[in-house]
């Protein structure tokens, strides 16, 4: 090894020289590493705190709703949507609002709430659910064509039973009984054997019976 060709003093010199050349980058590297690790931990704990805060607000919202305190509930939804817009809880709270607005027959407001949820939900398995709920409210607002378009735009996997039942409902409204029958059958096939919704779905399907193939 070339290094051995030097005596102790020279070896020391060379090491010092190397350190002088590269010492700064080493120190900077270590500092960057430490900052990254520390920052990551800080960010994680910040994230956890935020999630916990959002969770507490959502829990308060549920308590307020159960007690029928609507104005408190609305304030809590506002806070969630404003301060925790990226949180799943805000999306769920928006969908909660939509539910109440539908019950109060304010379909436009419900659609707006769902639109907010759709814009903020991100790409996760709750997204198709929000879209399906949008389609349902569109249908109630006599926009069966829009609803059908929304439904056909849902391509993510899952929710087959829910989606096909909604499609069936929309197609019945549009007078397309044959397609509706197919949709209802697909919904029944996708639904669990002991799902409580099965009987109602079978009722809808049976009502579309045609001569020669009675019932399902």
């Amino acid at each position, binding site marked *: 090894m070339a290094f051995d060709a030097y005596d102790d003093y020279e070896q020391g010199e060379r090491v010092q020289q190397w350190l002088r050349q590269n010492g700064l980058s080493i120190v900077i590297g270590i500092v960057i590493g430490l900052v990254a690790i520390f920052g990551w931990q800080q960010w994680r704990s910040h994230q956890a705190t935020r999630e916990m805060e959002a969770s507490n607000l959502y829990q*308060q919202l549920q308590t307020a709703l159960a007690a029928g305190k609507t104005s408190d509930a609305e304030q809590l939804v506002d806070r969630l949507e404003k301060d925790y817009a990226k949180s799943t809880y805000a999306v769920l709270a928006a969908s909660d609002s939509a539910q109440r607005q539908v019950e109060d027959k304010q379909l436009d407001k419900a659609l707006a709430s769902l639109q907010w949820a759709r814009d903020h939900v991100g790409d996760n398995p709750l997204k198709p659910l929000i879209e399906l709920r949008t389609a349902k409210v569109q249908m109630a607002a006599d926009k069966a064509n829009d609803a059908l378009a929304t439904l056909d735009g849902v391509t993510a996997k899952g929710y087959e039973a829910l989606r096909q039942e909604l499609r069936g409902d929309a197609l019945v409204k549009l007078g397309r009984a044959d397609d509706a029958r197919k949709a209802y059958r697909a919904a029944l096939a996708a639904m669990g054997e002991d799902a409580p919704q099965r009987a109602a779905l079978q009722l809808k399907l049976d009502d579309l019976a045609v001569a020669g193939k009675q019932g399902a």
Partner: protein
Amino acid sequence: MLQSLRDKMHGWPSIVVLGVAVFAMSFFGIEGYFTSRTETFVAKVGKQEISQQDFQNRMNEMRQQASEQMGDQFDPSVYEQPAMKERVLDAMVDQQLLLKANDDLGMRVSDAAVRDTIASIQAFQVNGRFDAATYRAVLAGQRKTPAMFEDEIRSSLAIRLLPDAISASTIVTDEDVDHFLKLRLQRRDLRYVMLARPALTDSKITDAQVQAYYKQHQAEFMAPEQVAVRYIEVSAADLKADNPPTDEDLRKRYEDEKQRFVQPEQRLVSHILIDVPKNATPAQQKAALAKAQKIAKEATPQNFAKLASEDSTDLGSKRQGGDLGWLEQGVTNKAFDDALFSLQKGQISQPVLSDEGYHIIWLRDIRSGQAKPFEQVRGQLEEEAVAAERDRKYNEVAGKLADQTYQNPSSLEPASQALGLPVKSTGLFTREGEKTGIAADPKVAKAAFSDDVLVQGNNSGLIDLGNNHSVVIHVDKHVPAAERPLAEVRDTIEKDILDERVAAAASKRANDLLARLEKGESMDAVAASAGAAVQTAKDTLRVQDGLPEQLRDQAFLLPHPKDGKSQFAAVALPEGVYALVAVDKVQDGDLSKVTAEQRKMLRQSMLAAYGDVATEGFIDALKAKTEIKIAKERM
């Protein structure tokens, strides 16, 4: 340094040392390349494994629950069936998916939810309200700290987090409710003709026909397999205790178990907890101690409750002003216990460190212990002694019986003679057992028909019938399943053949008449030709009395009448009778008759049903995004 090392290393010793070092270093850890890791999971959801241990634990839990709920009816073999195992594993996979989704979506169980859940558990309540002392006592009984229990509650709530949120935000529109009600309360105008059972035209039956029917329906004409058994029974109720306990025995028993009859000393206590996290830094610990010391200095009996409700971190007792109720020695952890039982009445302690953190303890009152005298508990002791003696005797005899019958498997006689117990016998019974006697217990019938007892002819094992009562059985007589002879079942067969003829005739006539209706002939004319009259039922509902059920159901499965043309069907009713039915008009349900209250209830149940479908859908969506491996062979 390396240089000098090398200068001094010469000759074969250094080569040997170096060789060993090189060998060790090159091959250390190499076995990892040759032994492949054995997988042990039963299912793998994403990166999370469900181990065999987890799965077995869950199966055991379910088994235990079922056995507690069903008692004697419980059949453990259900839990050995692959279908059951798969169901349980599926549920575990779903839970794992939901937990992972919580992480991905940033969902967390709030403290308030944990607190409310704990407060609502009945085991911790006194007079319908959460009671901190009971809470601690129950947990101590299960050897859990509040923190451990809170974690358990938290993870059980975590599984419900997303399903609950999805259900709670489900949307059901007025249109959904209307749509359902219109269908559910749909009204149909019906006409129908009940066709009488046709007369039998050909009642002649040949021997060949009977023979053929007998061959075809062989399975229906089998007499079931039966056995009769002999048995020895041992029952605690029939055993006499040898010698009643003497006064001296009872006194000794009293001395031995004295603490049972002593009401232990109890202390009424409140506390303030300043918790110290498990992995606290020294600084955190110091801060907690300082805070605790400050509170301890300020605390007086007057302001203790106020301080507790402000500063205590014990969720359970905080709201009650730190009240823990009356505690006995040994209920809480040791540090707390020692401090509590060294205090004088009315005193407030300095901070005491336990696993949970620093406690400031206020001893409010003392109830001293008392012992009941021997005379007062003599009766109870005597009863216990007799019962214990009888149990001991029963176990002794039952043990000997099991032993003797096992050593002489081919006969019950040796055991009978050795123990002085009579051999009894039962009549013939089937696999279903008998209504009375020992064969009423399904375990006896099962044992009697088991391979070991029936085929090998051995004594059964000791069969526990409950209540310190058990038997050993031995098969006495065996009647195999057999075809019942033709002569015995001839009458039944002839009746069946005639019934079939009538049914075929009735079906043919109904279908002929239906064809005439569909060609356009009037229902009145068709009915008249069959000697029957047309009946009408306007505004029939799906659920309505007065019409045969099958007829009503069929009428609601028919298509809507189109262009004024009625829809027809022939319906088979019980007893081989047929009816013809016509649907003339279909109307939506009358929504004006539905009250607001009914609508509200319907909406609630629809919310639940759609919430269910949505949750299923959500789990399906998670499954589509996650790699799930199931190892059935390890289940």
